[in-house]
């Protein structure tokens, strides 16, 4: 594997990691708010805050890691995306900032403040919607270069069916991933009331997830036929994704194996996400940036990969420790610690 493909693969892994952990976090915020509004708060919010408290900051780091790595490996992305995305990027940033700090404010400061929780919940849906537009833009057709300037065609983005189908997919995926994870977490905590509510959420959002994926495919066909053809060549990835989805849904319907169900959901998104990513290559931003033309110099590429491997040696055991203490420690999950 060439260094640039290795680089984009590593980054894609981190984006995938962010997709999973951030979805859990974003969706949980929405469910927590929904729980308060529908007076089911006592049932589910305990489970949610137990999981989220120790890990929210880690979630944010996945994202920072991705974009810093992207600019490192592919400096041209800074130029094109940076110029084009000043406004949408800033809006996403402000939403992220509000979300992170309001989580802390509401969780450590004033627990009963409805406004804090509302902002926390609402941003949980708005952020995936706004971040997903970066992927939409990467398909090409929303930027143009004129007179040495990169111009963002906002009007086109807002009227594109493809763009909206991606937004819909992002939101329902967030809710689905989150609901399945929280179902599992409630089950671990032996919190049957919460389990009942969360399982219904999971089932409710499973259908829309698949529908939204199909919608994205359909609109991609007309927006970027070339990418669509590439995706068809990788049909087996998407097939595996669907099989994993079906298995997860089956487990949840039967009300057993919630842990496996969540792992299946992770695989469902893994195959879909990597299928999407692989068929997107060689472009990072169609047609301006491809992995080979925008790749940083070899020396830096090797240095980054070395740093990355050294970093993993440090991070993986730490993450395992974190998960053992908070995710897989039955007493903690049950609220006894």
């Amino acid at each position, binding site marked *: 594997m060439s260094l640039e493909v290795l680089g984009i693969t590593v980054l894609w892994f981190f984006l995938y990691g962010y997709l999973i952990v951030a979805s859990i976090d974003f969706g949980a915020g929405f469910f927590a708010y929904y729980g308060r509004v529908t007076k089911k708060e006592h049932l589910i919010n305990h489970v949610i805050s137990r999981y989220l*408290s*120790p890990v929210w*900051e*880690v979630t*944010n*780091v996945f*994202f*920072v*890691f991705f*974009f*810093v*790595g992207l*600019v*490192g*490996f592919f*400096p*041209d*992305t*800074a*130029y*094109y995306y*940076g*110029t084009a995305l*000043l*406004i949408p990027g*800033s*809006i996403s*940033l*402000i939403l*992220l*900032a*509000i979300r*992170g*700090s309001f989580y*802390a*404010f509401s969780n*450590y*400061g*004033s627990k009963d403040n409805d406004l804090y929780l509302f902002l926390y919940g609402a941003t949980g849906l708005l952020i995936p919607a706004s971040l997903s537009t970066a992927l939409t833009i990467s398909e090409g057709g929303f930027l143009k270069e004129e007179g*040495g300037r*990169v111009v963002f065609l906002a009007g086109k983005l807002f009227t594109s069916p493809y763009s909206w189908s991606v937004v819909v997919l992002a939101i329902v995926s967030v809710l689905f991933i989150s609901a399945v994870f929280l179902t599992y977490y409630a089950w671990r905590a032996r919190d049957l009331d919460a389990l009942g509510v969360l399982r219904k959420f999971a089932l409710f959002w499973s259908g829309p997830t698949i529908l939204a994926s199909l919608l994205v495919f359909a609109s991609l066909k007309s927006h970027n036929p070339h990418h669509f053809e590439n995706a068809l060549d990788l049909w087996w990835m998407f097939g595996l994704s669907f099989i994993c989805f079906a298995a997860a849904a089956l487990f949840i319907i039967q009300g057993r194996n919630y842990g496996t169900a969540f792992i299946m959901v992770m695989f469902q998104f893994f195959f879909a996400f990597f299928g999407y990513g692989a068929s997107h290559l060689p472009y990072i931003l169609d047609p301006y940036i491809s992995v080979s033309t925008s790749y*940083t*110099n070899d*020396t*830096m590429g090797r*240095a*980054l990969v070395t*740093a*990355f491997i050294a*970093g993993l040696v*440090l*991070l993986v055991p*730490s*993450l395992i*420790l*974190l998960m053992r*203490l*908070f995710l897989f420690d039955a007493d*903690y999950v049950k609220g006894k*610690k």
Partner: protein
Amino acid sequence: MELSSVDLSRMLTSMTLGFHIIFATIGVGVPVMISIAEWIGIRNNDEYYLLMARRWARGFTITVAVGVVTGTCIGLQLSLLWPSFMKVAGQVISLPLFMETFAFFFEAIFLGIYLYTWDRFKKPIYHWLLSIPVIIGSSASAFFITTVNAFMNTPQGFKLDGGALVEIEPLTAMFNPATPSKTFHVLTTSYLTAALILGSIAAFTVLKGRNGVYERKALKLTMAAGLVFALGTAVAGDVSAKFLSKHQPEKLAALEWHFETKPGADLLLFGTIDENNEVTKAIKIPGMLSFLAGSSLDHEVVGLDEFPEEVRPPLWIHYLFDMMVGIGFFSIIVSAGFIILDKMKNRNPYNKGLLWLILAGGPLSILAIELGWILAEVGRQPWILRGYIKVAEGVTSADNVGLTFLMFLGLYILLGVLTIIVLVKMFRNKPAEAELEDRFRGSSK
């Protein structure tokens, strides 16, 4: 007045950094203080210090959250506002930026663990051990990010061939001449600022009439740590002067209004300057600038005359420099004063006058951080990458920077106000004594 894209981008970057830097400094310094307090508490089996660590950590969760989100903002804003600069610099200096995220990752993981495992270990020392990776992570984070700023001041590790960058050496770029003095200075002042802010809070509580054992111990600990870090900061300042004189003489010359290259250069304190560069009302210490720059009164200090007008930094940074150094000395005197009075018999270190000075130390040290940062950045003007790219060449070509500025202004006002409200609420009705009863003594009843 019509502001250009460059002006607006500079304003937005300054605002984000100016806001973030407060929380970043606290984020680097406070874990050290928490760790020291917990260590003393465990060693001496002293529940006051254990409580101190807990209360500091509780407040820290709020500031760290704001630090994380504003750090994310500046991280992305660099690409959004300075895309051309990032495209070039990214080829040479992205290694430490990348490593910074690892350090931050490491810190985030252990901070999450630390904050939620106070009572989970049989041996309390295990919990204390978790503070070490937090400190390593946050200080390493500061180190890596400062190497990037150092690189902007003294870039090396690449060659320009036509428009292309060749012979890139990431490690040489990272360990450039500015790295040692800058990272040293950033770390010591972060620790110092954290000690002074925490001391300031303790002094405030005592002045409000709550003068218990907890507050006294907090004052002693923060002032002792403050003195050590203040002396470290003085050493760092000295190292910085020597570095500047050797590698970035125009910055030192602008800081010190030193126009002519000559040996035996005087150190100027305070004073004002007019449009003809006439200095009035300054205190002159003969030969001192030479001494600080080169350890000898005869050392030749390069003056601004060796630089063309258009690459000289603005001269007003001298005022910032004076204030920053003044606050540094103030912190040495106040913390040393407290420690001396405390050691002397029949002396009261808790007298109102001294407490007021300690109270002032917190806000003043934050001010010094801001001043120091502004003078470091403005002192590099007109360059964004000294000798290679000017600020105006690195800026975005996008419109709407002004609108973006206003959006972020709103965000920072909101976050700043709420941080204060939440922190005040968190502690106002929970004096340390009462919490001590609850936590350590309540269960035995």
